[in-house]
């Protein structure tokens, strides 16, 4: 019954997400440079997001998975261009 209700894939996904959170917390509890800290955060956050998408949101299991992935990649691309384009034109360009 436990096995039936707690599939190993989801349990592993959960454990892995907790591990990634612990790794991200290292930037707070350990002394490190800003660059190293940001690198760690970028890596852990994006792995964590991909984990949710594939393990929990079942993004790849239906017939229209190509449409779903295309839409998600498009949205992420727009969000990244918005964030980094803003940083480039409003912050980094004046440093």
């Amino acid at each position, binding site marked *: 019954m436990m096995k*039936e*209700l*707690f*599939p190993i894939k*989801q349990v592993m*996904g*959960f454990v892995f*997400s*907790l591990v990634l*959170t612990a790794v*991200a*917390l290292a*930037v*707070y509890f350990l002394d490190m440079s*800003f660059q190293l*800290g*940001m690198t760690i*955060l*970028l890596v*852990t*956050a994006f792995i*964590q*997001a991909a984990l*949710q*998408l594939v*393990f*929990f*949101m*079942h993004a790849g299991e*239906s*017939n*229209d998975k190509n*449409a*779903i992935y295309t*839409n*998600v990649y*498009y*949205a*992420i691309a*727009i*969000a*990244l261009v*918005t*964030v980094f*384009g*803003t*940083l480039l034109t*409003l*912050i980094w360009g004046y440093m």
Partner: protein
Amino acid sequence: MKLDKTGPLEYSTQQNQMNILGFWIFLGAEIMLFGTLFASYFTLENGVGNGPTGAEIFEIAPVIWETIILLTSSFTIGLAVHAMRINRKNATLTFLAITLVLGLAFLGIEIYEFTHYYHVGATLQTSAFTAILLTTLGTHGAHVTFGLFWGAFIFLQIKKRGFTPETTNKSFIFSLYWHFLDVVWIFIFSFIYLKGLM
């Protein structure tokens, strides 16, 4: 209504498949919405004026609790969908109820956090930094609040009607929404709190 019995019930009709695809497109728009909020946050975070900085007002303990609670609730809603697919109504309802209780706990901590900010003089009008901070956190918190009501209604519908193509479809779409809020929180946790406290 043509029922496709090969896949899970929530995909069983053409309408159901379109609902799920449509919701993914909505989530795409949500990703862009939070993208603009993060872009504004990174632009304005140093505009603290006479107000406090992030490092001065952020508290690590509540943030860690919020993160663990939301991650766990994302796990339990995933278990609810799994239980739904193996036709276990009581287990589904239990996992959904746990998810909602965890969501409520998250919201409680966030409300505590907002009152803390108010008491240390970080309000919407204090500085560019506090304005975009509270707008970004508030947008996420409003989504969670909305999700709590949505989830509660889904709970009642499954309880009353059991698993039908409609109720399973609604539950699955709700689970997508809830996972998405967890993803957004991961970015808030990393690039607002941890970056601010580093």
